[in-house]
Structure formats: structure tokens, C-alpha cells
């Protein structure tokens, strides 16, 4: 290809990119950063596989604070703290939810491996947490009895 042709082609495609509506940019960004396969599957083991989780070690160094009984499954507050050195990510799953993967958090630059959030629970279920530290995966679960379905 001639240099001039190449340049004009480059300029052409650059202006095309600039003209993309910002919504499309956002959608592109989402598509590249959001783990669609992990979040949309109905199977917990599929979700884990899509997050590259393997050979989980059960660990008491993961603290899960959630109510033993939740009146309303629409809002269940969960606190997760990892006492495992070099924790990089925390993933939260609800086994019995239509899509079990709830959230995946990545910590860096001085963020503590600690999170409090509120989740939906369709039914009485285990809340399962998986922590990644280095090349290892650790897990801990807590059962929550749900009196009223929160997934509508």
C-alpha cells in the first residue's frame, strides 16, 4: 500500500471512530470489561470457570457477615473480608439465584480486601465467596434463610 493511501485510510477510520456516538463507546467498553459469560450463566460452576477459578481451597480466613434469616430477599446486606495475604479479587455468588454470579471486585493500590454491599436472593441459599490470591483460589460460604423471594 502506498504511504499516502495508508495515511488517508488511517485518517478516514479515525474520523469514523470519533463520530461514533458516545453510547456506542460505552457499550464497546462494557462489552470488553464485563464478563458476560460468567454473569449470564445459570450454573455456578460455569460462572466460576468463566472467571478462571479452579482448585478452590476452603478457608476460614474469609469472613462473611450476612443475616442468618433475611425477611426480604430483595435486600440482603453482605460484608466480606479476606484475611488472606495478597488478596486480588473477591467474587460473590448466590447458589440458588437465576444467575448465581452477583459481583466480582478487584482491589489495587492500597484498597483493602473488604466490601459491604446489598444483594438479591431468590431463595434460601448459600452465599459463596471466592478469593484470588496470587495463583490460588480460596472459598468460604454462609447459608442465609430467605423468607420472601427477592428476584421478582
Amino acid at each position, binding site marked *: 500500500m502506498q504511504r499516502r493511501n495508508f495515511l488517508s485510510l488511517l485518517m478516514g477510520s479515525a474520523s469514523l471512530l470519533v463520530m461514533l456516538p458516545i453510547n456506542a463507546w460505552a457499550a464497546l467498553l462494557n462489552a470488553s470489561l464485563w464478563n458476560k459469560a460468567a454473569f449470564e450463566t445459570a450454573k455456578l460452576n460455569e460462572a466460576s470457570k468463566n472467571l478462571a477459578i479452579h482448585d478452590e481451597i476452603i478457608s476460614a480466613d474469609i469472613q462473611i457477615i450476612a443475616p442468618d434469616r433475611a425477611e426480604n430477599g430483595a435486600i440482603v446486606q453482605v460484608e466480606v473480608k479476606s484475611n488472606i495475604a495478597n488478596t486480588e479479587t473477591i467474587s460473590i455468588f448466590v447458589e440458588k439465584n437465576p444467575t448465581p454470579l452477583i459481583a*466480582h471486585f*478487584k482491589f489495587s493500590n492500597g484498597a483493602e480486601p473488604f466490601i459491604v454491599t446489598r444483594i438479591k436472593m431468590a431463595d434460601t441459599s448459600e452465599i459463596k465467596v471466592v478469593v484470588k490470591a496470587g495463583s490460588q483460589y480460596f472459598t468460604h460460604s454462609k447459608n442465609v434463610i430467605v423468607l420472601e423471594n427477592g428476584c421478582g
Partner: protein
Amino acid sequence: MATLNADNMKMRAQLKGELTEVKVLMSHPMETGRKKDDFDRLIPAHFVQLVTATLNGKTVLEAQWGTGISKNPYLTFRLKGAKVGDIIQVTWLDNLGETATQNIAVTQA
């Protein structure tokens, strides 16, 4: 892009000892796409997918969320090494391309 106003997010960042605790409350419907309206029609999925937090411009937390986070999402996280006056910024992006950003300065608890 549908950028929502600053009232969309309520934030607080307090330094307690060596840790800064950041609390965030977002205003968002978090529709799963499985719920039906009064006319038995499915309400389309509308939920936050990505949340990013920075401290003075440096990324500290990156979250991916599914539809299982409750309506009007709530989040607490903790940072080491932040000082009074440092700026914490939180941005979310949802599946329809809507986004919101909020800044808050760290205060002494």
C-alpha cells in the same frame, strides 16, 4: 450519553486511623429483565455492570456487577494510604450505556 446529575450518587469518605472508609449509595433501578409489569410484559434489563473507584486518579477498585445487586446499590470499601483532602472518584456504567461520576474529598472521622 445519558449522564445523570450528581445527585445520583451519595458518597462519604472518612479517615479512621490508617484506613479510609468510603460509602457509596447509587440511585439505579437494577432491573433484572425477568420481572413483569402490570400488563404482563417483561421489564427490560437495566443494571449497573461496571463500577470503578480511584484515589487521586489512581484506580483502587474495579467491580463487575450482575443483576443480583439490589436496587439503589450500596457499597462500602476501605483504603490504606489516603490522606485528608485526597479525592476519591466513583464512576458507574450500566448495560444501556448510562453513566454517572461523583467526587468526594477524604475527611477526618
